[in-house]
């Protein structure tokens, strides 16, 4: 074998994985190591110590971020389908008189690239709210009251105006399938503060998941342990959490005790294999999860006025309200990343307003306005808003012009759209970036989805250009090889 030096400094200062193991220090390095070891599988499958006493290393055990963190939790309110910016938060007064007029404007949506069309003026009036005087559409009377907490990003851009790839982009930073989702990166980086609950929770719309389903919360090339777990805000929160066939808690305990005896005997002459003890431990962990997870969805403990704040009990807002309340309860219990979908399935079951814009957006905004406003207030009252980063937005926005000859429907638009963030060290009452006068594209301080992701990771205490996972010969990052900067104006 030829004696060839390993490169002393390749990217990220990393040499071979083998050498890397010897360089393990604290902080971020050990973080990357966990992933590498888990990824290798064989390492995870090996004895780590000869004593048989080495405690099981739960891949989801809580970890400290390498940098000081502003936020410990993220609640991503995903407005699936793509809300129209000019009808929600991006006030375009000059657009009203253009309604019905045909203009030249470059657009790109599911209907392809076009050079002009009939303007659909904003269908709602805007009012000013808060000390910041932010103009917000009548779709969000409750959220308007919270505008001083919110930083609006009016100049978001994405790589694709097509649902399939755009959903992947917003959730995983790439238009190509197979990459880990944002929540998985957070889960990988931080673990879960509460081992009785998953670190990454996804709540879906009653009409179904978004297109591509589980691809939106996949862990991609990382171990499945980091993927999102779908949780229901009512009934059994987690799949298979409930004992089957009427097994009582006591019966289960009896059975687990017996199982432990068998597994203990099996382990006795295999003590060096920590995977066996890990599996034994996992039964206890699951048992604890079964005991404590239902408590998280037990809203009976909540006061009536709190429930009312979220619109629970009101027909339109009950479902989303419960999800927002559950999100707060999960935050209190240490869950790191929570994603709630407004809208599911296809067509008008989500914000994808190709037909009747007014009907579509009135419906979805009406379902979510009060619950989200309630969430912001409740978090603030409990002192949790400072450590909880709220993100609101869809996979893209919508066009200023009509999609069809008749009607108010708007096609997709990834040239410019609005998202907003609040809490978790984000400045309130600010607006950054601008679209042109008709909201067709971002023209000032353009931000890419990568910048959004970088901002989230930064608030959580990571350098977005350093949080990496070794896979396929490369240090993979959420923000890609070229890197991405956080949006400094709102931090």
């Amino acid at each position, binding site marked *: *074998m*030829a004696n*060839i030096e390993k*490169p002393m400094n*390749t990217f990220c200062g990393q040499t*071979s994985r*083998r050498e890397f193991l010897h360089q393990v220090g604290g902080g971020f390095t050990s973080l990357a190591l966990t992933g590498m070891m*888990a990824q*290798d599988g064989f390492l995870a*499958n*090996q*004895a780590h110590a*000869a004593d048989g006493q080495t405690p*099981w290393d*739960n891949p989801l055990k809580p970890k400290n971020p390498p940098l000081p963190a502003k936020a410990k939790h993220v609640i991503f309110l995903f407005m699936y389908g793509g809300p129209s910016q000019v009808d929600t938060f991006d006030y375009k007064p000059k657009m009203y008189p253009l309604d019905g007029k045909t203009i030249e404007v470059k657009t790109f949506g599911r209907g392809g690239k076009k050079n002009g069309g009939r303007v659909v003026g904003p269908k709602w009036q805007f009012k000013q709210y808060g000390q910041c005087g932010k103009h917000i559409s009548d779709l969000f009377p409750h959220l308007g009251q919270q505008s001083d907490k919110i930083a609006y990003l009016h100049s978001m851009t994405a*790589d*694709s105006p097509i*649902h*399939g*790839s755009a959903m992947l982009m917003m959730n995983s930073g790439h238009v190509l*399938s*197979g990459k880990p989702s944002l929540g998985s990166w957070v889960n990988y980086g931080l673990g879960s503060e509460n081992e009785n609950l998953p670190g990454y929770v996804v709540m879906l719309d009653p009409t*179904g*998941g*978004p297109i*591509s389903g*589980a691809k939106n919360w996949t862990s*991609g090339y990382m*171990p*499945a342990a980091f993927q999102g777990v*779908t949780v*229901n805000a009512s009934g059994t929160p987690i799949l298979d959490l409930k*004992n*089957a*066939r009427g097994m009582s808690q006591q*019966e289960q305990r*009896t059975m687990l005790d*017996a199982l432990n005896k*068998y*597994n203990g*005997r099996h382990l006795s*002459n295999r*003590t*060096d*294999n920590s*995977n*066996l003890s890990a*599996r034994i431990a996992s*039964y206890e962990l*699951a048992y604890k999860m079964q005991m404590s997870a239902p408590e998280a969805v037990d809203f009976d403990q909540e006061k009536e006025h709190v429930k009312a704040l979220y619109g629970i009990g009101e027909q339109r807002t009950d479902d989303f309200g419960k999800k927002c309340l559950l999100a707060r309860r999960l935050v209190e219990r240490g869950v790191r990343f929570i994603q709630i979908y407004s809208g599911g*399935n*296809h067509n008008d079951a989500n914000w994808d307003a190709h037909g009747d814009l007014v009907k579509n957006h009135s419906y979805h905004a009406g379902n979510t306005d009060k619950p989200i406003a309630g969430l912001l207030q409740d978090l603030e009252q409990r002192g949790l808003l400072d450590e909880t980063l709220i993100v609101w937005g869809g996979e893209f926005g919508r066009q200023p012009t009509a999609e069809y000859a008749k009607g108010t429907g708007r096609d997709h638009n990834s040239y410019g759209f609005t998202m907003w963030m609040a809490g978790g060290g984000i400045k309130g009452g600010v607006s950054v970036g601008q679209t042109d006068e008709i909201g067709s594209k971002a*023209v000032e*301080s*353009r931000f890419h989805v990568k910048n959004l992701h970088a901002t989230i990771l930064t608030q959580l205490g990571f350098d977005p250009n350093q949080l990496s996972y070794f896979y*396929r*010969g*490369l240090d993979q990052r959420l923000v890609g*090889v070229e*890197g991405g900067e956080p949006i400094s104006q709102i931090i």
Partner: protein
Amino acid sequence: MPSRLLTITGIILAWFSPVRAQELSDAAKIQFFDQKVLGVLKENCFNCHGAEKRLKGHFRVTSRKGLLEGGDIGPAINLNEPEKSLFLEMISYKDSDHEMPPKDKLPQDQIDILTQWVKMGAPFNPEHEIAGEAEQVLPNTQVNDRTRAYWAYQSIKRPAVPEVTDKAWSANAIDAFVHDRLTRANLSPNGPADKRQLLRRAYYDLIGLPPTPKEVQAFVSDQSPNAFEKVVDNLLARPQYGEKWGRHWLDLVRFAETNGYERDSRKDLIWKYRDYIIRAFNEDKPYDRFIKEQLAGDELPDKTGDSITATGFYRLGIWDDEPADRPLARYDYLDDILRTASETFLGMTVGCARCHDHKIDPIPQKDYYTFLSFFSDISPHGKGGTNHVPITDPKSKAQMEEQRAKQQKAISQIREQLLPYEKALIDGFAKTNPTILDRAEDKDQKKLTNPYALPDASRGKGQIWEYTTKKPGDNWFEIAYDDREWSKDWSGFGVKGTPGSIVRTEWKTDDIWLRKDFRLVEIPGKLTLRIHHDEDAEVYLNGKQIRKFTGHVGRYIDVDITEASLDVLQTGRNTIAIHCKQTSGGQYIDAGLLVDYNVTPVPVLARLYGKEILGDKKLAEYNRLNQQLVTLEQQKIEVKEEFAMAVAERGRQKTWVLARGNPQLQGEEVNPSFPQILGDPKANIPEGYGNGNQTTGKRRVLAEWIASPNNPMTAKVMANRLWQHHFGRGIVRSSNNFGFLGDEPTHPELLNWLAAELIEGGWTLKRMHKLIMMSLTYQMSSTGQTAGLKADPNNDLLWRFDMRRLAAEEIRDSILNLTGQLNLKMGGPSIYTEIPAEVARTASRPGAAWGRSSKEDAARRSVYIFVKRSLHEPFLASFDWADTDNTCDVRFVTTVPTQTLTMLNSKFLNDSAEVLATRLQGDSQEASEQVSRAIELATSRPATDADISDGLKLINTFQQGGMDANQALQRFCLLVLNLNEFVYLD
């Protein structure tokens, strides 16, 4: 617009500098730079282009040299024609694809300053230059003598087998290499594994299933020296071997049956590729041939249906049917193929060189594109049958054609015999009723504009049917049945979102009964039922059941019901009645009737008037002949063209080196050649090497180069994979990456030896399995030993055999096997397991997310479960099933509480526990025997006293708590399915 902008710039410039910019002194230029320009550059450009670590687009703005050299898309400053400088074009936002700085356009005054500065010749104060390091040149990223000498790139040579003192460890060369290495580390190998453990190990390794208690007994009592050899031979001959080892291959090629993205559309017929792989392993297809078939099975001189099916390899990846950027998507598709091929066959991450030279390995960017050009002619992906290629065997096709010709001859003979009878019938009938037959014969006049006696829901706005969802009276399908109490509404009936449906009336109960009257002025010669049913449907016409359908179709289908309806059809009022039954998933029912009057309804004439026109005898003869004809026609032999989803080429596509991997930035044009680091890169594509003129033969040249014994990587990479799946990890642990960032081999010489053995043994795999399994190394026990644990806790040197957890498929198959439900049926379209509703609800179309198979089919081996990218089978997914979007060389082995929840509380496990309990009760009524049997079935060893007493104690405790014996036994069975010993192998 641009011209106006220029004018404004001109005016400002004139105002700015009274003298022409070029005439300034050097000092003044530098002063201008320092005062006006530097700040703008620092503020807006430096961050990404040179002041920090980043050098986006390989473009440095922090030095004059950097500006003049430019980046990926060329020099930034044109000194001869400064106003045409790329730099100025970009800051002026002229071209929407190239706008800098990316966030905001600069204010006009700054643009003007920079323009003026460029016109001056871009003076740069050297004091403020940040030269930065040159792009770091890493010693291992260049193709040179040093990197060529890297272990992985050496040609395969059989090394000498080391001498070892321990005679037992020198018989098999594998043992000699392992023992030698251990000795050098002052370690000694473990003794042999317990016979039962060894047998269980061998069974799972080769067929993915455990031995039966009988097989265990036979092996334990077989004292002959070749007892284990017999077992290995037997297992290698079993068809389940191909299912187990085929699945390892499917991991590598990221096998899936859908395309991903919004529609996640099906790759129809791609299951044939899966069956091909299983067949190839079972037939012990030589590995070199296996490679050639997958890469160029359509171009081989001795191609077969099988070898063409193998090229389904190219169609397995993700594909966006609606990409935002089409040219890029085309390259993404090819890139996915290149990555998968180079990692799977060569253990090289060539894909890393798409945007720039590989940063770790000696693979220049150009090598990426020369490699890519082998694939550049592959036709684009598409939906449904786009890439369906005929694979019919020419011999069987000829046979079928011959048979068909025979049959057709027989049919024409009978037709001839029938002619006089038919003529007699028509003539006889014409005497009494001339008008109808006139019309029937005069086909031009008879051209009917409306072939629908009863339009289905896809015609216009549908039809109003009578329907009920409450079970009606027994004679509900009769014409005369009184349906006035039934509801009336528009067709079709069902739940929106059901594939192929047009729902106008929601029906979501289990059953629906439908009735519809329609009128016929005369009896048609042909009657066709057009129906869409989801699921089972019975169709009645005038009280007679004419067809019964099971399952669901997903679209409208046409069924000829002329014969079936012959005896009941009447002019005037007719009634069609349908009962549709639903169990799960989407649901839908609708039907229509199409008539064709252009066919004379002779059989109807015969039924109605035959007796009087022909007389009894002749009528009987007519009926006999007619029946013969019907029978013959029903046995119609169709020359069925068989298809597979496979590779096809479309035209010649040029390939260029693309700067930064960007399809818009075409550089040097390249032709196919091999990675330089592996030797002579020249790829000679002989004339006529392709599949006729349909393909170029490029892929065949690539395949032959990869499958050559001279390729330094191929045999090593495969030998390593064989080792990996016997020992739980490869000699090179990063089995897809033999490059500098991969792991070095723990036993380099052994790896070489195995590779040489693979080649010299004619690339057959079964021989290699046996060789490996007959070694003492494979047969070692897995127990710990103090010296080994201390010196080599990771067991790199193989002082013991590593325990392993069963893979996802093995766990599920073992559960089914344990309960006696496992169905070993092989091959064919994929099946669906029962999945929890909570999982189906994660899909955007929950009703259509997953299919349904019969109970028997749902109990087939896991390798046959439908592989859907957006919905992985949840049980398999929870046990670290392979990712479907990327090649998977090593599966994770994770232990998380959600797995435990599945094992304790899922329906699958609890159903299984119930079946297991029933099985045990069938074997014995004695609780202790039931317990003992369960343990033995699950662990392949006899139960110990402690096992039995703990089990009985548990059952007793449950019974004392009020459970009946059966329920208590079920709980114990659930415990058995959760044993560590059940899912871990020694």
